[in-house]
């Protein structure tokens, strides 16, 4: 749809140069790579570290890698990792304390010195990061650890060349085209096995880096080819979120029998919360050495699916699996609006893929719509 952003063409060698340029600028370069039979996000050095020639098959409770016919660098969609593992790490020490005699000193954890360059960020993921920005930076209290990692991060987005089996970003208006929040955005154009990339500049920092790379002008044909790819991806989404007011639908049906039905399938394993790019809940854990002279508090990812999560006065508020599934889904799709002014879901499909029993939130919404009981918010 060409928005009038500055465009250029890079070859694979150009992408290699991009990685090098970012390293030279002292970024910690992180991107997709194959490990443990999945495509995960980790430190990368060269284009050979990328999942070149790989693709993924995804469905409810199903994820497999397979070889492509070509050598595409970004011919897959999203895996079990999201960028939150770098911006909002699974474990983060908050402070430690030291006792000297009767006195205690509290030492806050310093912000990490590194800044990240994220390679291959999808449109849905850019939206997820924007959502977490609102959570961690938009309220009365902010998270300095998130801010430190987020502020100087460099984003190389990728417009998806295909939709995944569980993707539904189109119906969530979060993709597949990256519109904002990136420094550079790549669309991979494959012609006769040759990889070329249409680059769009999204910021001054992006332009500065692009200028340092070998690149050519983009032609109208290139732009059209990229637009066609986006259109094709948009039309081939694996799933679709029904077009309905999710906030009122779910909050008006908190006693719907569907919750009992999904509870019979849900294992409350919490996979969905681990892979979801917007889930942000954490718990704190205090530890101490044997003498109690040195203690520390660590923050770690937590999940609303655990019994501990809502524990108070000797018991959990949400004892049943039904109530915990309802909490997760209504928070993600409904009360997130009340709290942060938007949906919490970006349609990436990870929760569907990584659910051991393949629960699909779009299907759950579909089941409630049209059979509304209207019990809930009155």
């Amino acid at each position, binding site marked *: 749809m060409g928005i009038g952003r500055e465009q250029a063409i890079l070859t694979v060698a150009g992408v290699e140069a991009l990685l090098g340029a970012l390293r030279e600028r002292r970024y910690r370069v992180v991107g997709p790579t194959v490990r443990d039979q999945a495509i995960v996000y980790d430190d990368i050095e060269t284009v050979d570290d990328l999942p070149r020639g790989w693709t993924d098959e995804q469905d409810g409770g199903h994820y497999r890698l397979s070889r492509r016919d070509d050598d595409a660098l970004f011919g897959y969609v999203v895996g079990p990792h999201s960028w939150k593992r770098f911006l909002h790490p699974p474990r983060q020490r*908050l*402070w430690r*304390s030291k*006792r*000297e005699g*009767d*006195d*205690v*000193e*509290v*030492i*806050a954890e310093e912000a990490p010195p590194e800044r990240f360059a994220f390679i291959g960020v999808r449109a849905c993921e850019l939206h997820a990061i924007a959502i977490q920005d609102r*959570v*961690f930076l938009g*309220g*009365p*209290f902010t*998270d*300095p650890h998130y801010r430190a990692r987020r502020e100087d991060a460099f984003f190389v987005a990728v417009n998806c060349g295909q939709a995944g089996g569980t993707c539904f970003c189109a119906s969530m208006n979060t993709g597949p085209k990256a519109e904002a929040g990136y420094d550079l955005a790549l669309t991979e154009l494959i012609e006769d096995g040759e990889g070329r990339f249409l680059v769009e500049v999204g910021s001054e920092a992006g332009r500065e880096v692009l200028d340092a790379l070998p690149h050519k002008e983009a032609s109208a044909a290139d732009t059209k080819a990229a637009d066609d790819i986006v259109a094709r991806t948009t039309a081939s989404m694996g799933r679709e979120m029904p077009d309905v007011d999710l906030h009122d639908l779910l*909050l008006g049906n*908190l*006693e719907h029998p569907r919750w009992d039905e999904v509870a019979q399938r849900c294992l409350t394993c919490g996979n969905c919360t681990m892979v979801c790019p917007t889930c*942000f*809940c*954490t*718990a*704190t854990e*205090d*530890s*101490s050495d044997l003498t*109690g002279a040195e*203690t520390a*508090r660590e*923050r770690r990812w*937590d999940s*609303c699916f655990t019994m501990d*999560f*809502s*524990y*108070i*006065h*000797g018991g959990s*508020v*949400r*004892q*049943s699996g*039904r*109530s915990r599934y309802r*909490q997760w889904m*209504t*928070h993600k799709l409904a*009360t997130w609006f*009340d*709290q942060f002014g938007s949906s919490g879901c970006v349609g990436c499909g990870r929760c569907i893929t990584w659910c051991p029993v393949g629960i699909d939130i779009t299907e759950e919404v579909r089941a409630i719509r049209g059979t509304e009981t209207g019990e*809930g*918010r*009155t």
Partner: protein
Amino acid sequence: MSDARPAGHDPMVPQVARVRRRRQDAPDVFTLELEPEGAAAAAFAPGQFNMLTAFGVGESAISMSGDPARKGGIVHTIRAVGSVSRALTELRRGDRLGLRGPFGVGWPMVDLDGKDVIVMAGGIGLAPLRPVIYRLLAERERFADVAILYGTRSPADILFRSELESWRQRLDVTLEVTVDHAAEGWHGHVGVVTTLLPRIRIDPEKVVALLCGPEIMMRFAVQALTSMGVAAESIYVSMERNMKCAIGLCGHCQFSPVFVCKDGPVFRYDRVRYLLALKEL
């Protein structure tokens, strides 16, 4: 050398405080007066809470139970129910602990002028209401009738006895205390705290009720008040949920759309009425 963080540095990092005084109020209830080291403690509003850290054990949300008008130490009344609260109640004078806060939305002091105020406390719920009571008594002329209704399990569980006695002796305040289960030697009222309501005159147009106690007790109290014609907009409750951060970022204290730590813990009843009616929310 203790660390004194200026307010707003990192809301998750505590300042160090020292126990200045410790008193036992009931077999498992203790009141601590704390003195922060370094920066002076921020002023608090009645109904707010701090996060207290027992180093090496953990952190707990504890409401302030002292007089907001008094300078000096911060007062907390703590019931030992879990490992952290128990560790806090075992601190002695001079011991150090961590302090973060104050957090939360407190009681609606500005909406009480000219009203008949009913303070209804159940069990340990009297502690978060005590700062309100101090304010009501200190500025008595701002309010119409003031009634304090306090119910607890048994006579041995009654908190702040000497203060209750001094409040009872005032002519401008109605104080009623009841126990669920009488013991030998108890000559006071017996019955749940809602049975005290017939003892005061309630003008639904003029009354504001502030409730704090176990959720069931608050729900029963709301039922009793609404059956007497009191509007949902005239009742306030103090909610409690598992809290880890107290700043709305850990997700634990969510009560459907609201975070108890930053949208509460005090809520006007009409805002949470539909939530309280749903189970396991």
